[in-house]
């Protein structure tokens, strides 16, 4: 049986809140050995003498000399610990040195359950943006000691505390169950700019950090150590379409806007042209690409993956930007932003926010639930997503290959795009291969591109594509680490699965047949 020390910061809190938290500790399935209350000796004295807690076995104190062999749990004053939270944590502390989980927020009304903040597995990129792990953290004594000790950590901003603890840990773990209950305001993660700046200094990240006060999220923009050459690979058949009222050759438009608008200029363009490309289309692409352009002819039956691979082997650059011909750069510093993410040795691929022509979201990274979806597709750009998911740079299980920047070494290591997927799921497979090789895949909202794909286009999935992706990655599709098992499946948004949450009206059933009598 594990021993637990609960740590709460009692500064600027009411006695009522302290009592609420205390009551929840008494109702816990495993009774903590200590409750360390820091920051207010007055509140400590009051709670120590309260009749309810006086008789309990919990030692309430403000100092602890020996924390060995005990798991330390940080719990905010006013929050309540779920009755089975400590038993759930105890099941994981043998294998993991830091544990966090889901939370419930607000009050239950009638037959409705409170809102729940469902969290993804360990996502270090996201933690730099905001404290997505919530206010309850359980850590082993060694991690606590390495992170600065209980008394230091107890008084820090929750984002600062989380960053320090996760910097010191080796195997973090998310428990997909509600561990604590808090107020509705704590549903959205908080952020601290100074905490992130200190974290960057500690971990050697050379970056400019800025905070959005409105969204409570920090942007970490890494400074580039060098200006490596990028090969932009554009597979195309020279299609002409109407864009913003003008008839344009899509590939020529994508290349021209990239050359004209990007503030990063060290790139060449490799256009992989189908044999059916018209001479006008080819000429428009040549005119748009100028000196940077290299044309590679492709004369085999359509296979998107093969075209990308062909473009990649014809390149001598260390970085590859896979770019569909129906795209257009929006943020001029998009390439620098993506390059900055790839400065991290553990990141293999980075992708931007893709928007339709009307500025609605085309893709904010993939979720696998188990169908691969583009997250929040067709939602307004003003949509922030659950727990501000769309406002922060974060890990994803996959990115749409319409626009991704990938390290050449990683591309070669995983064998490029799989040619068994000529049109669908080659990007899903590619993302999973990259993660399987030990690299992270990061999506960012701070770089934006248009993807003029038709909203009405529904990909024609072939049975063999679904079968192949399932044969290779079924386990990953059904348990996406950047998803949560309690969320609704088969949809493209991060939404609590409320199938089981029925109302009284559901229970009473329809009234129409009786009413019509």
């Amino acid at each position, binding site marked *: 049986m594990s021993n637990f020390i609960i740590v709460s910061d009692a500064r600027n809190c009411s006695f009522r809140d302290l009592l609420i938290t205390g009551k929840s500790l008494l109702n816990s399935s495993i009774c903590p050995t200590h409750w360390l209350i820091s920051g207010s000796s007055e509140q400590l004295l009051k709670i120590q003498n309260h009749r309810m807690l006086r008789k309990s076995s919990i030692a309430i104190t403000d100092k602890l000399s020996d924390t060995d062999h005990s798991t330390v749990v940080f719990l905010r004053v006013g929050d309540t610990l779920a009755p089975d939270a400590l038993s759930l944590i105890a099941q994981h502390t043998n294998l993991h040195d830091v544990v966090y989980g889901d939370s419930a927020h607000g009050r239950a009304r*009638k037959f409705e*359950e409170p809102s729940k903040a469902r969290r993804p597995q360990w996502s270090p990129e996201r933690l730099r943006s905001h404290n997505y792990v919530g206010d309850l953290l359980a850590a082993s004594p060694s991690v606590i000691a390495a992170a600065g000790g209980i008394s230091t950590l107890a008084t820090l901003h929750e984002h600062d505390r989380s960053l320090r603890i996760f910097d010191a840990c080796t195997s973090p773990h998310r428990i997909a169950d509600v561990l604590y209950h808090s107020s509705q305001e704590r549903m959205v993660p908080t952020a601290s700019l100074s905490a992130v700046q200190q974290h960057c200094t500690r971990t050697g990240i050379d970056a400019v950090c800025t905070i959005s006060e409105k969204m409570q999220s920090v942007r970490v923009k890494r400074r580039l150590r060098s200006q490596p050459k990028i090969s932009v690979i554009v597979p195309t058949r020279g299609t002409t379409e109407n864009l913003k009222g003008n008839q344009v050759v899509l590939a020529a438009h994508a290349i021209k806007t990239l050359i004209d608008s990007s503030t990063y200029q060290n790139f060449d363009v490799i256009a992989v042209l189908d044999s059916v490309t018209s001479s006008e289309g080819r000429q428009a692409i040549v005119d748009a690409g100028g000196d940077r352009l290299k044309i590679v002819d492709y004369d085999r039956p359509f296979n998107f993956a*093969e075209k990308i*691979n*062909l473009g*990649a*082997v*014809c390149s001598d650059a260390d970085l590859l930007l896979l770019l569909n011909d129906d795209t257009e750069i929006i943020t001029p510093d998009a390439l620098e932003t993506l390059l900055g993410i790839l400065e991290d040795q553990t990141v293999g691929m980075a992708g931007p926010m893709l928007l339709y022509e009307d500025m609605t979201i085309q893709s904010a990274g993939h979720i696998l639930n*188990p*169908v691969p979806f583009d997250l929040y597709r067709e939602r307004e750009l003003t949509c922030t997503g659950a727990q501000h998911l769309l406002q922060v740079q974060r890990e994803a299980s996959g990115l749409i290959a319409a626009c991704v920047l990938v390290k050449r070494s990683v591309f*070669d*290591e*995983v*064998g*490029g795009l*799989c*040619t*068994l997927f000529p049109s669908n799921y080659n990007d899903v497979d590619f993302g*999973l*291969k990259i993660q*399987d*090789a030990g690299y992270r895949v990061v999506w960012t909202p701070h770089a934006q591109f248009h993807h003029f794909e038709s909203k009405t286009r529904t990909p024609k999935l072939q*049975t063999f594509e*679904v*079968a192949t*992706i*399932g*044969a*290779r*990655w*079924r*386990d990953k*599709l*059904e348990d996406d680490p950047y998803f949560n*098992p*309690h969320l*609704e*499946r*088969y949809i493209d948004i991060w939404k*609590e*699965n*409320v*199938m*089981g*949450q*029925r*109302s*009284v*009206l*559901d*229970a*009473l*059933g329809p*009234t129409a047949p*009786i*009413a019509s009598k």
Partner: protein
Amino acid sequence: MDAEAARIGQALDLLIARDSEIGERAKLRVAKIYGPTATSSLGTYDFSDSFAKRDQVSRRGDWVHRNWLRPVRFFYRHVPKPIRFAIKKLFA
């Protein structure tokens, strides 16, 4: 030119070989977890069968079909219409 074409062909073959190697390893892992024929009754993976909605976690919270609700529902359906609508309005 031929040398360049040969180099490209070789590089593409290398990518395919690497991809097959990773693919085979992934297939073995999946087979180890789900069994060699576990992808579905037809032997191929299919999203609709692979993760039945009935398996979703919060389905457990479905209290609507409990037996004790049946007499309550019967009573509700046979009370006068104004009362029934008042109840409905109350819980809407």
